[in-house]
């Protein structure tokens, strides 16, 4: 049985572990150690990290249904916010490093290229999630409304995995695995909802 305290104690370590890749890539980028096409590499790594963190936040909710892991849910906010952190870095790499703030070009790119459209909408949906991730916000909005807002994580995850799926040219194994995991996690939630004992009104 892991207690809330156990999980809370692991937070500083997790924080450093999840933050570390971004620092490493930034360092490698600045020192010219990110390979032959560093901007592309940086964008790919940041995006993949963000997608994985989004999936992990979904997993945490599912895992918290298992009795001994019930308290794992205390890690969800931190990981969710880190997902947003990596999405922001990914997006700003695209805007600043890849396209040098050429807004006309970027707007066209977002409209015309489905994979960028998916990614962009996913990013937009993450903003209300991230900005309501404080205890204070839960209180102000009320748990019910807050929870409704946070259902946005489902379209975020689906759009993010589609963003990756469409981007890949030929071997779609990796994006399909991510999509599969997301679908399983969603099915589990639907199943849980349908089998939930009805409370007396």
């Amino acid at each position, binding site marked *: 049985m892991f207690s809330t305290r156990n999980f809370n104690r692991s937070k500083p370590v997790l924080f450093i572990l999840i933050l570390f890749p971004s620092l490493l890539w930034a360092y490698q980028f600045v020192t010219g150690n990110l*390979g*032959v*096409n560093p*901007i592309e590499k940086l964008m790919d790594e940041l995006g993949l990290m963000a997608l994985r963190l989004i999936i992990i936040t979904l997993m945490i909710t599912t895992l918290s249904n298992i009795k001994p892991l019930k308290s794992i849910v205390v890690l969800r906010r931190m990981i969710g916010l880190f997902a947003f952190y990596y999405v922001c870095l990914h997006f700003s790499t695209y805007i600043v490093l890849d*396209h040098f703030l050429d807004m006309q*070009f970027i707007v*066209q790119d977002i409209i*015309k*290229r489905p994979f960028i459209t998916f990614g962009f909408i996913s990013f937009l949906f993450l903003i209300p999630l991230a900005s309501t991730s404080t205890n204070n916000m839960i209180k102000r909005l009320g748990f019910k409304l807050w929870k409704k807002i946070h259902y946005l994580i489902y379209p975020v995850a689906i759009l993010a995995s589609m963003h990756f799926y469409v*981007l890949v040219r030929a071997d779609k194994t990796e994006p399909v695995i991510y999509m599969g995991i997301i679908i399983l996690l969603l099915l589990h939630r639907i199943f849980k909802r349908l089998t939930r004992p009805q409370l007396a009104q």
Partner: protein
Amino acid sequence: MKILGSEITPYKTYLNRRKFIKGSLASAMLATITSSAFANHDSDLSIYTKNLNENDKLNSYEEITTYNNFYEFGTHKKHPHLNSGNFKPRPWTIKIDGLVKKPQTFDLEKILSNVTIEDRVYRLRCVEAWSMVIPWQGFQLSELIKMAEPLSSAKYVQFVTVFRPEEMPGQQKRTIIWPYREGLRMDEAMNPLTILATGLYGHEMPNQNGAPIRLVVPWKYGFKSIKSIVEIRFLDTQPETSWETLAPWEYGFYANVNPNVNHPRWSQGTERRIGEFKRRETLMFNGYEKEVAHLYKDLDLTKFY
């Protein structure tokens, strides 16, 4: 400085020996003195740079050989470099068939003894919107076509890549339909810019770049420049090509570099030249408009992309 035998040995196997006989032997020997096998060619770039456009700079041997799209060795850019070690580009034959006077199979050595290997510095523009400048060694495809003696009914040329899943791990997975196939219209194939390359930077063609012989069509997106060719067919109808078959809404038969025709994944208006920070404008026909625009004067390039 002492020259180690081991440092000279690789040069014995050069396919591009004619090039060396033709004047760069001395510089090649000088180069072997330096510790790294290829630092040599990088240090004497004058052979190549004289062919450069003023806005272009050669990409390094390392850039050209560690960042490749060659799905036969895996789908990541670094896979061809990492996974091509077991590929054996020798001995090699090329089968010539279809609409020719006499179908036959040529030894690569025989082909090479009948052609002139020359230096060609070309821009390579990938459909993924990155580009490089590469010093190839090779010969005009037209020379081989003359040897093949196609019939006058031949209007197209199809190329086929080798299929050896035991040596090319990417082929063990059906990422695309193997073997890789590409094609050109006959006048494109005969154009003097179109070459079969057998080397780069004075080295025999590295496995990851399409050893021992590959096509280079500099005004088309990189995927047209098919690698490790084992068969050339002459046809009277437009041949099927790999990427077009896989995703016809994305890749056309012509695949001419064209900043005005967009691709659903990548805007083709700009490109990142490997080694540069800011994107640059993509040029019509990759900057070879003067040499090839006449081939397409009657073609709607937005339809035939």
